[in-house]
């Protein structure tokens, strides 16, 4: 083994030895292994080490970066390869449907008491509770507010309707995503169920989206792209699909921007920790979730990822701001189909044509 270590570059050697030591320590204490599936930045090495020191367990972290890969890994072998994973509320539904997750005993996770009121009220968050059983514990979230150029927009926008205002014609940046686009239009029209459009609401939503398009500077897909378009195109207003992350990026390039939550509520995704049906050591998985609600992981999310945590109020939000947690939409194919036409520049008659 000494020989093998000598082959490793010096700067990695310390890390390798640490890992070996941890592996050996873990085996010696025989506290078991926790298999975590999470997004990058959710289980940084230093946090993992802290957890391992406290519990004597060994943690194996696997990172994924798309919902589809996560689904592949968990639906394979009945989720037997992982104990605990982080998933958003909309995605969580298919895991519940296929029985790949087991209910979480909130009493076994005392740190839930540290969470903000809006996250303690699990029933108020669509998709977490089914048949009085809790399937996931909120961990981090990102809201989709409105970013505005303080030079051009003197008063912070208070409503989504600002995106349609003629004075911002050609200066509004939008996100190229069919599901969110229709939800946005629905909310702007005062619809309380933006994820479930009423059959009669479709033509109006299309009209709204075409009107919005006529106001648009352009549509972005990636955060970096949005920053470039915002700055180069001298945009006044932007629907921030990536929320505070875009605010950070824009400020990093020197843009004088503000970030506002519309009164209709901001769309938001919420990632939660869930326990798989294949979990070997449920107590250890609960201990992990409990640990994730402590100050260190929460601070790491905020400082390193620019993501909000559930135990302290986000600097971008005030308590009265409303968040509209994402839910699966009624017909994603229909939304996508219409959206393609809208985005291509078709007029309403053509968009709504069969």
């Amino acid at each position: 083994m000494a020989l093998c270590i000598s082959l490793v570059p010096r700067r990695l050697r310390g890390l390798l030895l640490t890992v070996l030591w941890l592996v050996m320590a873990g085996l010696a204490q025989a506290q078991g292994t926790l298999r975590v599936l999470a997004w990058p930045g959710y289980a940084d090495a230093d946090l993992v080490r802290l957890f391992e020191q406290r519990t004597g367990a060994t943690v194996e972290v696997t990172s994924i970066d798309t919902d589809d890969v996560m689904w592949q890994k968990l639906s394979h072998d009945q989720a037997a390869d992982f104990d605990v994973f982080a998933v958003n509320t909309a995605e969580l539904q298919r895991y519940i449907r296929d029985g790949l997750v087991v209910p979480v005993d909130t009493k076994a996770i005392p740190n839930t008491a540290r969470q903000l009121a809006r996250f303690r009220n699990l029933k108020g968050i669509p998709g977490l509770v089914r048949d009085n059983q809790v399937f996931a514990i909120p961990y981090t979230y990102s809201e989709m507010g409105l970013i505005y150029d303080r030079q051009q927009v003197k008063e912070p926008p208070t409503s989504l309707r600002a995106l349609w205002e003629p004075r911002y014609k050609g200066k509004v940046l939008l996100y190229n995503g069919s599901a969110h686009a229709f939800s946005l239009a629905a909310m702007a029209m005062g619809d309380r169920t933006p994820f479930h459009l009423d059959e009669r609401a479709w033509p109006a939503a299309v009209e709204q989206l075409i009107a919005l398009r006529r106001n648009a500077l352009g549509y972005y897909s990636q955060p970096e792209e949005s920053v470039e378009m915002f700055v180069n195109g001298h945009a006044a207003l932007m629907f921030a699909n990536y929320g505070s992350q875009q605010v950070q990026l824009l400020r990093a390039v020197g843009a004088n921007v503000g970030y506002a939550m519309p009164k209709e509520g901001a769309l938001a995704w919420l990632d939660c920790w869930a326990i798989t049906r294949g979990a070997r050591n449920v107590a250890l998985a609960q201990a992990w979730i409990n640990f994730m609600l402590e100050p260190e992981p929460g601070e790491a999310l905020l400082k390193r990822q620019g993501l909000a945590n559930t135990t302290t109020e986000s600097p971008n939000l005030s308590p009265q701001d409303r968040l509209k947690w994402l839910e699966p939409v009624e017909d994603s194919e229909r939304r996508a189909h219409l959206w393609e036409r809208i985005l291509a520049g078709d007029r309403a008659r053509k968009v709504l044509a069969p």
Partner: protein
Amino acid sequence: MKFFGIAFKLGLLLAGVGMLASGLTGFYAYQASRAMLVESAKAELLTTTQVLGRRITQSREEISRNLQVLAGHPAALAVLRGNSPAQEDQLATLFERILLANPAYFQIRLISASDNGLERVRVDRAGERLVRVQGDDLQEKAHFSYLSGTLKLAPGTTYLSRIVINHERGAHAGQDQPSVILGTPVVDDMGHALGAMVINVDLNGAFAMLTSDLPRDYQLFLANRSGDYLIHPDPTKTFGFDKGRRVLMQEEFPKTQALVDRQVERLLLEVHDGRYIDAPVVAAFIGRKSRVAGDEDRLLLGLTQPLGAVLVQANRLGSVVLQMVVGACLICLALAVLVARAVTRPINSLSRAVHGFAYGHEAAALPVERQDEIGVLARSVSHMQDEIRNQLATLERNREDLEHLARHDALTGLPNRRAFQERLELTLARAQRSGERFALLFIDLDQFKSINDRWGHEGGDAALKIVAQRLSAAIRKADAVARMGGDEFVVLLENPTRREDIVVIAEKLLDSVHSPILHAGQEMQVGFSIGISQYPEDGDTAATLLSRADHAMYAIKAAGRNGFRFSASKGTPTNPTPL
């Protein structure tokens, strides 16, 4: 020759040195030429990449010219100013012509700045056909930066869009295809942009034409300024950003990070890792800044060529070098054997000569004719052999003389007693084996003392010599005569068949001495007394036979001299023959 002899060692050394020299020469020749080949391939690849870069610019400039021609057409302005279907048709026909002439164009459009960027004239390529899009199918494009970007430009300049997958629904052949859009503003007399002339170009089609004459094993890479692949030999790696998972050039070729970071504008690589671990490539990458306004301000272009293809020549060279090395080694080996033999053959012949000489065989030929050190050595050995041979001959002669002296009487030259004893023993042994007979005749000169007294010793010696000669002459060749000492002689008669034969011989002997001997001018008269013994009648040992013959001789002397008598052992003694 010993197996590990000097020849073997010398041969081994010479062959080893030769092979090492040719092997090292071959190896370094191969290394040097391989490096040169790779370097020249890299330089060629870089040149090709730069040529390709220029072609891209030329191709873009050609599109720009087409755009200017279209934007400057009076019909364009007329269409943008008002409803003029005839002018629209005219433009559409023009668009169709250009689309037919340029297979890499997906679409040509005239888009108005007003009406939310409504398309006014539009012709799309749809497979083999061209489709004119009209009426409700015309779309609003104000939210696309290729329109807003173009409208901001000065007349006569070109806008270049980002190279993306075109998701504009209804774009016919161009839909969901990698495209780049170029546009130029259409301006009125006041300089206001009333609309834009826009061409959608098929990225893959355009590049297929640009690279059609490249060698088949060249692979083309195109990336945007961030390194996102736009063209890659593996199409699944292109436009990763469009699928939500970026695939970057600097991940596959880490050194291109410097290109992405604009630290360098060109890069030459030999890539041996990643997916090239089994099939290494040489690669040239260049960064090209766009000369026109737009969103795609810089492109990264790369070409790779399999190192294997480059090294085919090197390998061919390598195999030639290898053949030469093997040939040279064989020649070295043969030369080593020849040299070793040339050196050791004279040494061996010297050694054989000395060896043969030592064992008395006929001396082998020596390489004395040689003019080198071995010739000198051979001549020395030859001289030494002659010396030894001469000395041996002298020794042999002396030995033979001594031998003769030891066995012959010095005065008469007849065998002496010792020699006669040996002859007698031999004859006796033979006779005992074969049953043959023989006789001894013991002869004593009568009154020899008186000859000595009268003629002196010289006279005696002369008499003895003459007697010896006459005895020798009288006997048969097979018989032997010897001087036993003083005046005593003995004759051995081999195999006398009858007693009468002996008598004849004895009488003949007596006759032979009968004639007078001349000495100092005077005649000497000598006589014999002969005693005869016979084998096997008179004994079976030499001593007995001699003794009997002696007795018989004394008996005849006592009886009156000058006669012969047989030993009396058997029958009556023979009467002496009176003279």
